[in-house]
């Protein structure tokens, strides 16, 4: 008589001491369950053939039917038991794998974060190295273009004075001190050039400390607060002798018809947005005038003395000498 023969798993007499042994035992149980499920089909087919023959050949058909019923119930229960065990183990195994994959994702995320931090450090280091390598050009204040002027060839428009804001009255003492220091450091060397007539509107250089309050009236300072040429910085000694006040030039010059320095009353005020001459052209012209102004008073005095003290009998050698110097 056929019975559902399922492989009976022996009870574990000795428990696993560690995780590997438990894992191996569970794996063996799972394999046995899968083998039983595979053998269940053949067993059911063989049992069906046996009961068919017994029912046709045996006289006690009722007993055969009852035995078949018992076998079918046991086979069904055993199948459900095996399938439940196998599915539970499969689900457990899948969950373990999902947990392992999640742990691996976490580890990979940690590695990616560390790689990003390393890349950030590397980028920061490279950026700092490149920033040390690049040398930004530093221009003197006199080369900084005013508002609205464009750089020739670069088409760059400066919106503000960089580092030189004369509108702020709090910075005036700093500019005064800077200009004074520049004037003191600059040697007051005067050079003469022959063949150039002195400009009548220039004044001689005044020795002593330079002071804006003394040379310019307060009213002019207030009116010309936007002019970038109010405190011209000095480049050389010849430029340092440029006249700044119209009053002094008017008092010393014989023909004060054309004052150089801008006067709000009789000269056109220069705005920062107006187009200007180039610095080299303007400075060369003023440099010549400044040289003439430096030489004119002393030489005129000497010329007058020579004219007054000379005798008619003598020949005007000294006079011609002085005239030649002009």
């Amino acid at each position, binding site marked *: 008589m056929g019975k559902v023969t399922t492989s009976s798993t022996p009870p574990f007499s000795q428990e696993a001491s560690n995780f590997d042994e438990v894992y191996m035992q569970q794996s063996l149980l799972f394999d046995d369950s899968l083998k039983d499920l595979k053998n269940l089909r053949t067993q059911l087919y063989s049992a069906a053939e046996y009961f068919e023959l017994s029912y046709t050949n045996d006289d006690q058909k009722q007993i055969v*039917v009852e035995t078949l*019923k018992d076998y*079918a*119930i046991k086979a*069904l229960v055993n*199948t*459900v038991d095996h*399938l439940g065990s196998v*599915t539970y183990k*499969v*689900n457990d195994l*899948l969950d373990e*794998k*999902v947990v392992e*994959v*999640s742990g*691996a*994702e976490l580890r*990979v995320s940690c*590695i*990616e974060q560390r*790689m990003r931090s*390393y890349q950030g*450090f*590397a980028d920061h*280091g*490279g950026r700092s190295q490149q920033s040390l390598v690049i040398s930004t050009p530093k221009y003197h204040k006199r080369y900084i273009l005013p508002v609205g002027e464009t750089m020739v060839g670069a088409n760059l428009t400066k919106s503000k004075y960089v580092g030189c804001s004369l509108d702020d009255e709090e910075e005036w003492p700093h500019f005064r001190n800077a200009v004074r220091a520049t004037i003191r450091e600059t040697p007051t060397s005067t050079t003469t050039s022959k063949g150039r007539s002195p400009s009548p509107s220039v004044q001689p250089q005044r020795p002593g400390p330079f002071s804006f309050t003394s040379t310019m009236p307060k009213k002019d300072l207030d009116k010309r607060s936007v002019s970038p040429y109010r405190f011209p910085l000095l480049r050389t000694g010849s430029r340092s002798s440029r006249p700044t006040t119209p009053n002094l030039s008017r008092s010393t010059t014989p023909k004060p018809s054309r004052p150089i320095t801008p006067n709000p009353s009789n000269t056109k005020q220069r705005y920062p947005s107006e187009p200007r001459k180039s610095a080299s052209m303007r400075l060369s012209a003023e440099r010549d005038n400044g040289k003439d102004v430096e030489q004119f008073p002393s030489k005129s005095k000497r010329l007058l003395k020579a004219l007054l003290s000379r005798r008619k009998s003598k020949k005007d050698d000294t006079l011609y000498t002085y005239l030649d110097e002009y």
Partner: protein
Amino acid sequence: MARAGGITNAVNVGIAVQADWENREFISHISLNVRRLFDFLVQFEATTKSKLASLNEKLDVLERRLELLEVQVGNASANPSLFAT
């Protein structure tokens, strides 16, 4: 006598019919449980396939990320001066 034999045959037929109905009920129970077992197996297959698919997708993504990390680590190890302080 014939009447008694007819009643006995009727009783036997009734017993046979009842037994047949019991057998049919048993078979229906067995078939119902087998169908339930089949439905459970189909559902289990679906859930297991879904879990395996999600697991396969996660493993693919993880594999790509690991390949990317491998390339990045290879580049970093090829240029150790980048990490030199």
